[in-house]
Every structure is written in C-alpha cells, then in structure tokens.
C-alpha cells in the first residue's frame, strides 16, 4: 500500500513532467496559451496515460519483447483516437484550439516512456497509480504554465480580466519564446525550493 502511494505521489513533485523529466515539451510549449487550454491538454494526456499504462501492464506477459514498441504504440494510438473523437463530439471549441496536438499525444514521450519504463515491468494496480500520478503532475504543470502565460500575455485568468485597467499585456508571453521563458523561470523556482529543502535536511 505504501508503494502504491509512493508511485502516485512521485509524479506530483519528484518526477513531475515536464519539469523534472523534461519530456513532452512539444504540447507543453505549444498549447499553454491559457489555463483552460493547458488543463484540457493535461486531462486528455492523463486519460491516455492511465489506460495505456493499464493495458500495457495487463498484457506485459503476453507481448513478446521484440514487438513490444509496436504493441505499445497501437495501444496508445487507440486511446488517443478515442480521446480525439470524444473531445470532438462533446468539447468542440477545445478540440478546435488544441487541434493537431491531440493526435500528437501518440508521440508524446511521457506516455511511451511510462509504458516502457514502468508499466511493462509492474502490476496493473501500480501502473494505474503511476499513470494517474504522472498524468496529474502533467496536468498541474500545464495548467500552471497556462495560467502564468494567460495572466501576463492577456491580463486574464480563466478568461476573467484580473489586471488593472492600464495594464499592457505582453503578447510575447503567448508566443512560443514566451513559453520557454515561463518554463525556465518555473524550473528555476522548483530547483531553488529543492535546494532549500536539501540544505535544511543537511543542517538537521
């Protein structure tokens, strides 16, 4: 039970993608122009991650090692198409915004990475916890990044104007270079916190 919890929580800080694993940067930088977009992408990825982890883990003894990558890709691609169709059917405006990045979840290295490094070696329950943790971490990262870029780039939070009237939005933050800058600052902040924690631990 303890390890189940450990597998879940490690995705939230210790190996939080995209900051700690620095995987899946393409959707991270491309779609986080607003909080909602980031969250939508994160939830879509989480769904695919949970189910691909579960099925890869269930089939881990059946799939011969020589064709494992092909099998993983088929499993992942199936869930991505399901997400794409469901999103198109029920969340059309979000689908329009995320566009090509939904089908591109197939080649998101976080998902294939978890299938290969974790789910193909662990039990379904642990893989489920791992998928949920990493997915949630990814969602939180994208949501945070989206909020920061939306606040600075458009002066709104979740489409509600929050800045003072004379605030001039930095449209730069909504462009891809702005995404790199925001990502870099967040990464630096996280490293600072980790460093502080390590120092405090050492002093004890």
């Amino acid at each position, binding site marked *: 039970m303890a390890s189940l919890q450990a597998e879940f929580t490690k995705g939230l800080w210790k190996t939080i993608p995209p900051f700690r694993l620095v995987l899946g940067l393409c959707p991270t930088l491309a779609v986080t122009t607003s909080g909602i977009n980031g969250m939508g992408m994160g939830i879509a990825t989480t769904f695919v991650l949970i189910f691909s982890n579960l099925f890869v883990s269930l089939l881990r003894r059946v799939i011969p090692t020589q064709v494992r990558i092909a099998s993983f890709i088929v499993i992942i691609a199936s869930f991505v198409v399901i997400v794409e*169709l*469901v999103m198109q059917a029920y969340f*059309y405006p979000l689908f329009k915004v995320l566009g090509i990045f939904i089908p591109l979840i197939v080649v998101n290295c976080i998902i294939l990475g978890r299938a290969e490094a974790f789910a193909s070696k662990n039990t379904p329950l642990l893989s489920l916890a791992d998928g949920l943790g990493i997915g949630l971490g990814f969602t939180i990262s994208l949501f945070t990044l989206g909020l920061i870029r939306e606040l600075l780039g458009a002066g709104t939070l979740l489409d509600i104007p929050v800045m003072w009237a004379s605030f001039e939005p930095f449209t730069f933050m909504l462009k891809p270079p702005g995404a790199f800058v925001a990502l870099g600052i967040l990464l630096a902040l996280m490293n600072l916190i980790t460093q502080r924690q390590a120092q405090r631990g050492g002093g004890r």
Partner: protein
Amino acid sequence: MRAIVRMVVVLTLICAASGLTLSAVYRLTEAPIDYQIIKFVKEPAVKKVLTGYDNDPILDRKRIVIGTDERGNPRELTIFPAKKQGKTFAVAIEGRGKGFHGTIGVMVGVSKQGKITDIAITSHSETPGIGSRITEPSFTAQFQGLPATGEPKVDGISGATYSSRGVMSAVEEALGYAEKFREEMF
C-alpha cells in the same frame, strides 16, 4: 519459428481489438460530432448569409441527393432554408473550391429571385495574413447582390490570387447546385 508465430499472432490480435474498439467509438460519436460541426462551424455562417427569416434554418436543414460517388454511394448536400410564413425565400448552400493550401469551404446564400444574398468562409487553410484575407468583409461583401448564375465576377485580393479564385470556384459550385436542384430547394 514459434517466437515469430507468437509475435505475429499477438500483434494481429492487439491491432484487431484496437480496430474493433475504434469503429464502435466512431459509431457512437458520429452523430454528436456532426451536430457540433453544424453548431460551431455552419451555424455562424448560415446566420451571416441569411437574413429576415422567421424559422430556424439549422433545425429545418434538409439533405438532398446530388449524385453518387465512385463507389455508388449517394452523395448528399445539406441545405439551410430561410423561410417566412412557411415559404422558403432563400437557401444557404456550402460549396468547395481549391485554394492555395487545400480546400476552401464557402457558405453561399441564394435568394429565390436568383441573387447571392451574402457569402461566408466556413473552412480554409490559406496563408495567415495573405490568403486568409478572403475572410475579410471587404472581400466577401463584393458577392452581395450578384446574379446567382455562372462564375461570379469580383475583384481578387492582390497577392492572394489563388485564394481568391478558390473562393470564386467554391461559390460557383454552390450556385451550380442551386440551379440544378432548384425544385428541391424552393
């Protein structure tokens, strides 16, 4: 040898299961997706090209068969009628034309008197800032009031000749449908 057979069998089974699942999901989501596209893409265009109606053109939309494709399946066209006191006085029809980058979809309003009421671009993938100017009112407004027959004569956008021509051929296609299936429409 046994390993190879196993590889083939496992991969085939996984792919087959995936195919089956996806076809089921596709069937389930087909109708809602159609509805969403009509609601978010077609509806604003229809509302723009038709005016003065007292019905709901989206609700009253009908499909007419316009021929068969290469497999012999019927090809259908969705038309959106604008009615006043139950009488159709104009319809919105979508036509397609080849632009600079792929297909341009144009919703064309045609009145019973044989005039173009207005046009609206429903889909395009033209170059942003150049070809994408076909969506600007200064270009689309030129079509208002033109006779709904043959090729429409308007000024193209300089620097975006192919995109402008794509819109014109899309309008021409829609007008062709309007002429050919006049009885079914009005």
